[in-house]
Structures are given as structure tokens and as C-alpha cells.
């Protein structure tokens, strides 16, 4: 469905460019998730993942 729509609107991209765009967004999403999980001081997140942070040896915590 999205392929048909993209083709009609002329939004079809070359495969390498599409891969780059998807990968970039994927990495940004992963970075944001990792930041929240491992660096956020929000109490609910921090308290839940406190032991995980310390268990990874390289993640700063307090």
C-alpha cells in the first residue's frame, strides 16, 4: 500500500538512500532509548534500572 502511494507521489527512493534514512532514524531512536534507560535521573526509571546500570561497569550512576 505504502509502496503504491510512494510511487504515485514520486517519493520512491533509491535503496541505499532509504537504508541510510531508516538506519539514521533507528540509531536516533536507539540513542534516545539508551539515554533514558541508562542516563536519565527520572526516579521511576533510575530506581528500576539502578542495578542494571551498575552491572554494566561503564555506565555512570550514583
Amino acid at each position, binding site marked *: 500500500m505504502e509502496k503504491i502511494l510512494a510511487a504515485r507521489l514520486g517519493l520512491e527512493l533509491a535503496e541505499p538512500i532509504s537504508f541510510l534514512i*531508516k538506519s539514521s532514524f533507528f540509531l536516533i*531512536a536507539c*540513542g534516545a532509548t539508551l539515554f*533514558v534507560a541508562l542516563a*536519565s535521573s527520572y526516579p521511576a526509571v533510575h530506581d528500576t534500572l539502578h542495578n542494571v546500570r551498575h*552491572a554494566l*561497569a561503564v555506565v555512570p550512576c550514583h
Partner: protein
Amino acid sequence: MSLKFLSALCLLAALSLSLGDNALAADPLNIYFKTSPVIENVRPFADPVNLSVLVTGADGRPVERGSVELRLDAPRAGSWISTDIPLVEGTRLLEARLPLRQGRANWKYLMPIRGQYRLFVDAVSEDGRKSSQVFEFTVSENRSKWFALSGFSLALVLFGFAAGRVFTSAKSSSALLLIACLGLGGQALAAADAEPTNYAAHLDIEAASVGKPSRVHWRLNGAAANSPAALTLSITHLEKEKIVFAVERLAILGEFTLNFHFPDGVEYRVTAVAEFQGRAPVNVERIISVTGVEPPKRAMIPALSYFLALIALGLVIGRWTKRHVAT
């Protein structure tokens, strides 16, 4: 005139050099340091270590009376990856003067992080002889943590690998992506003070926060002030139920002071028991809440970069394998 002055100056210089050599040669105290278990088996935040300093005279006999001034410094910050408690790195962990008993001073301590520690020992005997020495020892990281990090790293590579294969296709159109971001919150725990539980002794603890040492001062009150006592003092990490510092039966006169760096923002129990000859022991206990300090966000950058690099590596491998199989 000037020649006489020059020769006098030379004589003075030679005399001072020879005196300096003699002073070095007659260095009267030897200081030895050991840990139990041996330092190779010590891991951060695992079990408290028994540390011991032995001070002997030139003849090898333990110094009967005297004291040692101890200063323990945490490992310095690494150039790239930090430890799990970066605020402790490079700070002073402990400062105390302990009396010598048969030439020995013993204490227990829980090493908070991995790396190279430095212990400065200044020994003074009752007859005024002095000596100083610096001991360096390295605490290795817990193996289970390296295993956990390896497992997590592998999971990230596999995650990236799967994404790389999914994102690689013969023909593709635009992609719809959602990014969720969460804000940050702050947390500050206020230090809570408890009332002293015993009338005969008093325990003062400076408001403690991670990142700097706090003064712990114990003293006897009233008639017992300045009485000789055998003091047993311990500091316990309540969340982990581990002793982080302890001294046993220290011969003191009425008071004892210690600068202690609480490495974790949790509650600690400080207990002091003083024993006297022919009197009931005096017990005082306090529970303190140590203010946790958020490590700087820049300390997280290396670890986050490392994790993202692993995902990117997985993406590349995933794409490569998919295209390789397709061709």
C-alpha cells in the same frame, strides 16, 4: 675576603648535605602494608577488605606506641570510559588517625570502584620518630560485570544486525518512523539526622553527599570525657547490608575523628561502641541519608557512543549479509 666567604659557603653546603644523608640513612621507621584477602582477589563493592599497616623500628621490632595518619585516594578518572561511580574518581576517600597497637593499625574498608588506589601513611612513634610512605594498589573490576557488559554488547550488535537485514531490501519506498523522547527529572535526597541514642557519647556526622568526604566525630560526654576507651566503629551500607568501613577496639582518649567519603547516595548506619575497664560499654548509633549527586551527563557520552557504535556495526553486518546472500 670573598674567598673566605666562598669557602665558608662551601663548608656550610657540604655540612648540610652530609647531615641530610645521615637523616635519610637513619630513617627510623619502616612501614609495611597488606590486605586480606590479597588485593588481586578484591573486587569493588563486593566484600570489605581488611587493611593493615605495620610500623617497625630499624631493628624490625613493632613500634609499641604511636599512631598513623592515613589518607586513601580513589583511582583517578580514566581517559575515556568511566567507572559506575564517576563522582568518586580521584577524590579523597578516607582520612583518619589510628593509634598503633603492637605496631599495627587495622581497619576494614569496602573499595567502591575499580582502579589504582593510593594510600598515604604518616607514622609517628611516641618518641617522635617519623616516617611516611605511599602505597599504590589496584582493584580489578568484578568479572560478572564484564560478562554482563559483553552480553549487553552482543545483544546490541544482534539488534542492529536484525535491523540491518530488515532495512535492506531490493526496492524501497519512504519509511514511517516514530521517535519517543522522555524528559529528565531531578532527584535530591535530603540528609536526615537522627537523635543520639546514648547520653554518654555523641556522634556528629556532617551532612553527607556523594563527591566529598564528610566529618564523622565521636566523643564521650560528661564524666566519661577524655577517658581511655576501646572504640569499635563501623559504617554499614544499609541497602546492600555491607560494612564499608570499620575499626575495632581502637585505644582512644575520649574522642575519634574520621573524614569519610560516602560513595553511594543511600542510607548508612554508623555504630560506635566504646568499652571501658570496669564500666558498661557505651553504644551510640545513627542512621544517615547520603545525598546522591547525579553524575555529569558528559560522563555518559563515551558509554552511549560505544553502545550506538555496536548497533551501527550490527546494521552494517546485517546489510552486508543480506546483500551477500541476495547476490
